[in-house]
C-alpha cells in the first residue's frame, strides 16, 4: 500500500495510530482521521458501488454532503451495525469495523455491475414503461426481482444495543456552523454577554479555516487565531459550544433540532453513555452560517473513483495531511479550484493539467500557476475519464466557438479534481418556508423572504471569501443583537492573504457527443 501522508500537514494526531478494518482488511490511520481520509492515505479510492448501475464509487467530498462513499459500520457485539454511514464523516477508532455496500460477491468483482453495461435499457423510469405483461408475471416474477435489488446497505438485524438521550435548551442566539461567519458571529455576541449556543457537525470548530486557511488572521497564523478564538469562547460562561452536532430540522418559532453524536468516535465509551443526544433548541434569534457546497461538473465518467471535488482534495490535504493522488488533472469553471491546485502542488502533488473552461482568468492566477510550473489549459474542457475502478487519465479538448470540442488529447493522471463553483447551503433555511431568489449575477439561489427570526451569514449569502464571511458574521450578530434589544459592540477580524474568487456556472461541459446524457439519465 502506498503511503500518501504529507509530513507537517493536517490536524490529525500523529502520535496516536489507530487500526480499523474495511471489508476485512486492516488499515492504519491516525486519531482525527475519518474512514475516508485514512483509506485515501492508504491509496484506496474504491469504497462502494452505485445504487442502480453498480458503478464503482469513491468519495467525492470530504464531508456530510458525500453521496458515494457510504459504508456499513459496527463496533462488534450484537445490535451495533449501522448501514449507509458516510465514510467521509465517520471518525476512526480502535476496533471500528467497516464494510462496503451494494456489491456481490465482492467490491472488486460485482455481478450487479452488469447493469452498467445495460444502462441504455434501464433509462429513467424504465420500470413504469414495462414489466406489465403478462399480468401475472408482475407479482410472481418482476416485482420480487425489482425488490430484491433495492436498497444500498443492509438493515440491522438485531435490536439496537445502545441508549439515546434528549434535552430541551433555550438560548438567546443559536448559531449553526462554526466557520468564519459563525465564529465571527459567536465572538461578537459572546463578548456582548449574549447567551449563545454554537453548533457544528464536525469534530473541530473552524469550518473552512481548517482546510483553506488564509495566510494570517489579525496578524497571527490562522491556526493560532483559531485556537485563541475557541479558547475565548469556551471560557465564557454565556457560551455553549457543541461539536459533532448536526442541525437536523428548523421548526416553528425558532426551534432547531440538533443531533449530537456522543460515542461513535470512541473506542471505549463510558458505561451507560448514550450514543446520541437529541437537542430541541429554542432560540430567540438564529444565525445560519452553514457555508456553501462545491458544485460538481458534468462530464463522462465524473463518478469514477479518483474524481472528486477540488475543495475535498484540499481538505484531505490540509485537515488530514493526505494526498488524494500523485498526479491530478483539475477541471474547473471557478477560481477556487486554482487555489486548491496550488496547495496540492506545494505539497508535492503533480498537476498534470489545470483545465479551465473559461477562456480567460485573472492574471494573478496565471502567474501563480506559472511560478509552480503548472500546465494551464484555459478555454479547454475534460471530455471523458479513462480507467475502471480508478481514474487513469482524461481526454482534454479545446472548446470551439460553436460549443464543440477540438484538438483532443489524452492526459495521464490518477486523480481528477473538479469545481463548478459554489451553491449556498440553505437547507435549514428552506425548512422555515423562507423564499429563495435567483441571483442572476452569481447564478445561485440566495435567501429571500424570511418567516422566522433568522439571519444568514457568509457562504449562505453567496459570499465566497473568508474576509467577507467574517464581516458578514459580525453583521448578522449585530442584527440579531439589535433584534434582541441589546446594543452590540462591533468587532473586526482582518484576514491577510484572502483567496477571493469568482467563476461561471456550467450546466454541462461542452462535448461532441449529444447522446451522452440521454443514455445515462
Amino acid at each position: 500500500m502506498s503511503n500518501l501522508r504529507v509530513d507537517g500537514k493536517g490536524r490529525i494526531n500523529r502520535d496516536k495510530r489507530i487500526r480499523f478494518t474495511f471489508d476485512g482488511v486492516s488499515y492504519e490511520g491516525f486519531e482525527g482521521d475519518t474512514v475516508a481520509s485514512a483509506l485515501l492515505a492508504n491509496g484506496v479510492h474504491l469504497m462502494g458501488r452505485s445504487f442502480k448501475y453498480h458503478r464503482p464509487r469513491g468519495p467525492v467530498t470530504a464531508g456530510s454532503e458525500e453521496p458515494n462513499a457510504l459504508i456499513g459500520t459496527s463496533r462488534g457485539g450484537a445490535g451495533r451495525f449501522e448501514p449507509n454511514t458516510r465514510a467521509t464523516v465517520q471518525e476512526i477508532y480502535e476496533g471500528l469495523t467497516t464494510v462496503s455496500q451494494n456489491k456481490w460477491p465482492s467490491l472488486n468483482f460485482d455481478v450487479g455491475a452488469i447493469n452498467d453495461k445495460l444502462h441504455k435499457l434501464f433509462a429513467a423510469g424504465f420500470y413504469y414503461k414495462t414489466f406489465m405483461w403478462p399480468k401475472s408475471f408482475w407479482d410472481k416474477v418482476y416485482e420480487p426481482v425489482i425488490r430484491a435489488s433495492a436498497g444500498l446497505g443492509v438493515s440491522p438485524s438485531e435490536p439496537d444495543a445502545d441508549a439515546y438521550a434528549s434535552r430541551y435548551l433555550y438560548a438567546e442566539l443559536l448559531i449553526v456552523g462554526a466557520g468564519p461567519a459563525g465564529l465571527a458571529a459567536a465572538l461578537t455576541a459572546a463578548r456582548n454577554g449574549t447567551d449563545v449556543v454554537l453548533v457544528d457537525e464536525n469534530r473541530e470548530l473552524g469550518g473552512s479555516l481548517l482546510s483553506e486557511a488564509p495566510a494570517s488572521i489579525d496578524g497571527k497564523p490562522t491556526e493560532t487565531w483559531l485556537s485563541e478564538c475557541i479558547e475565548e469562547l469556551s471560557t465564557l460562561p454565556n457560551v455553549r459550544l457543541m461539536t459533532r452536532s448536526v442541525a437536523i430540522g428548523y421548526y416553528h418559532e425558532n426551534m432547531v433540532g440538533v443531533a449530537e453524536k456522543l460515542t461513535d468516535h470512541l473506542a471505549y465509551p463510558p458505561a451507560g453513555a448514550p450514543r446520541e443526544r437529541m437537542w430541541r433548541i429554542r432560540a430567540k434569534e438564529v444565525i445560519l452560517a452553514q457555508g456553501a457546497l462545491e458544485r460538481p461538473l458534468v462530464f463522462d465518467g465524473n463518478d469514477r473513483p479518483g474524481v472528486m471535488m477540488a475543495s475535498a482534495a484540499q481538505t484531505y490535504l490540509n485537515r488530514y495531511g493526505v494526498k488524494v493522488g500523485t498526479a491530478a488533472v483539475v477541471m474547473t469553471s471557478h477560481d477556487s479550484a486554482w487555489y486548491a491546485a496550488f496547495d496540492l502542488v506545494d505539497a508535492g502533488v503533480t498537476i498534470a493539467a489545470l483545465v479551465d473552461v473559461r477562456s480567460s482568468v485573472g492574471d494573478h492566477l496565471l502567474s501563480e500557476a506559472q511560478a509552480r510550473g503548472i500546465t494551464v489549459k484555459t478555454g479547454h474542457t475534460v471530455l471523458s475519464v479513462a480507467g475502471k475502478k480508478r481514474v487513469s487519465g482524461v481526454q482534454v479538448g479545446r472548446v470551439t466557438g460553436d460549443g464543440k470540442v477540438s484538438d483532443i488529447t489524452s492526459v495521464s493522471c490518477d486523480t481528477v479534481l473538479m469545481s463548478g463553483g459554489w451553491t449556498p447551503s440553505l437547507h435549514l433555511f428552506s425548512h422555515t418556508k423562507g423564499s429563495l431568489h435567483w441571483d442572476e449575477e452569481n447564478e445561485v439561489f440566495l435567501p429571500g423572504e424570511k418567516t422566522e427570526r433568522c439571519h444568514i451569514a457568509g457562504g449562505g449569502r453567496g459570499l465566497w471569501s473568508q474576509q467577507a464571511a467574517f464581516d458578514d458574521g459580525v453583521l448578522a450578530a449585530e442584527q440579531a443583537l439589535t433584534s434582541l434589544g441589546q446594543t452590540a459592540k462591533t468587532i473586526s477580524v482582518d484576514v491577510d492573504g484572502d483567496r477571493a474568487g469568482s467563476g461561471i456556472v456550467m450546466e454541462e461541459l461542452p462535448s461532441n457527443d449529444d447522446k451522452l446524457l440521454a443514455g445515462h439519465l
Partner: protein
Amino acid sequence: MSKFSAVSLLKGALTGYKNVEPQWPDAELKSEYDVIIVGAGGHGLGAAYYLAKEHGITNVAVIDKGWLGGGNTGRNTTIIRSNYLYDESARLYDHAVDLWDGLSQDLNYNVMFSQRGVMMLAHNVHDVQSFKRHIHANRLNGVDNVWLTPEQAKEKCPPLNISPSARYPVMGAAFQQRGGTARHDAVAWGYARAAAARGVDIIQNCPVLSIERGPEGAVTGLQTARGFVKAKKIAVSAAGGTSVVMDTAGVRLPLESYPLQALVSEPVKPIFPQVVMSNTVHAYISQSDKGELVIGSGTDQYVSYSQRGGLPLIEHTLAAICEVFPIFRRIRMLRKWGGVVDVTPDRSPILGKTPVQGLYLNCGWGTGGFKATPGSAHVFAHTIAQDEPHPINAPFTLERFETGRLIDEAAAAAVAH
C-alpha cells in the same frame, strides 16, 4: 402517443432515445370546456381519464395551481386497503382495490401495484375486539381480512417485536392480503398520460381564482390566473385546498385542513415484506421498492395550510416505530415532509353533486385518499357525466351532514385513516 413495452424500451435503447416524446403534451388553456376538473392529483386526473374512456367526454381540462401530482398524491405513504367497517365504505374502497388490480395494463403504465398485504396491529383488548368486529363485517361484504395471532404476524413480518413484555405488546393483527402499495408518482403520471392520449388538456401552474356562477345559479366557468374559462361542469378535487376553492362558489363545507407528516429512511436491502399499521401507537410503515422505509405519522392538532409540521409528532411516531421494530433504531431518516389533508367530521369522503348545478365535489379523504384513487375517480367521472351519482358513491353526499346519515369510519381510519 406510442405504447410502452419492453420492445419499445429496447428500440429506444438501440437508437439512443432519439425519438423520446413527452409523456403528455403541455396543453394551452382553451376558452371553453365541457368539464373542468380542479386539482391534478390522482383523483382529478383519474376522473378525467374515465370521463374520456367510459363516457366519451374528451373536451376536458384538468387545472392545478402547482405541478401534476405535487399535492397529496406525491406526499402520501401509498397504502392501499379496503378493510373499512361500514357497508358503504367497504363497497367504495373495494371498488378501488378491484380497479387497482389491472390498472397498469389499463393505463399502459406500470403503477407497481403490490399486493403485499396490510397488517393492523392490536395492542390491547379494545383493539382486539374492534379489529375482530372489522374482520367479521368485512367478510360479510366480501372483503378479505383475517385475524393473525402474534406468532402468525411475526412469521409474516419478521422485524416485528412480539415479546409480551414489550412497551406496545402485539396481541394479534388484522391482515388484508389484497392490500398493499402502489407507486404514487406513477399513478399520477399514468393517468395523465392516458387521459392526455384521449384528448384531455392538462394545465399546470395555473391557480384557480374563483368558480363563477350565472344568474340561475349554475356554474358558468372558472376565473384562473390565465383568464376566464367557460365550462358547463366543474368538478373540484383539490384535497386540502377544497374549502378555499368551494368558498368562491358560495358553498361552505364540513371540512378542516390539517398538516400531515410522513418520512422515509435511507434505503436498505429488503427487510420489511408487508405494510404494518398501528392505530394505538400512531404509526405505519412499509418498505418501498427502492428500499426506503416509508413511515406515516399523524396529523398535527391544529388546522393549517403551511405544509410544515411539528417535531413532537415525528418524535412520537419514530419512538413508536422503534418500540415495535427495535432493529430499525439505527437506521437514519432521510427526509420528512408535510401535506395538507381535508378531514370530514365522520372521516368519510364527500363524493357527489353539490347544491350548485354543474358543480361536483370529491373531497374529505383526510389522510387516506390515495388508496381510493381509481375507485373514487371512476365513480366521480360517472357522477359528472350522468349528473347522477354511481350507486357506489350515492351514500357519500354532502347532504348527509344535514340528514344525519353519517358514515363514521373514525375507527377504521388507522392514524386518522
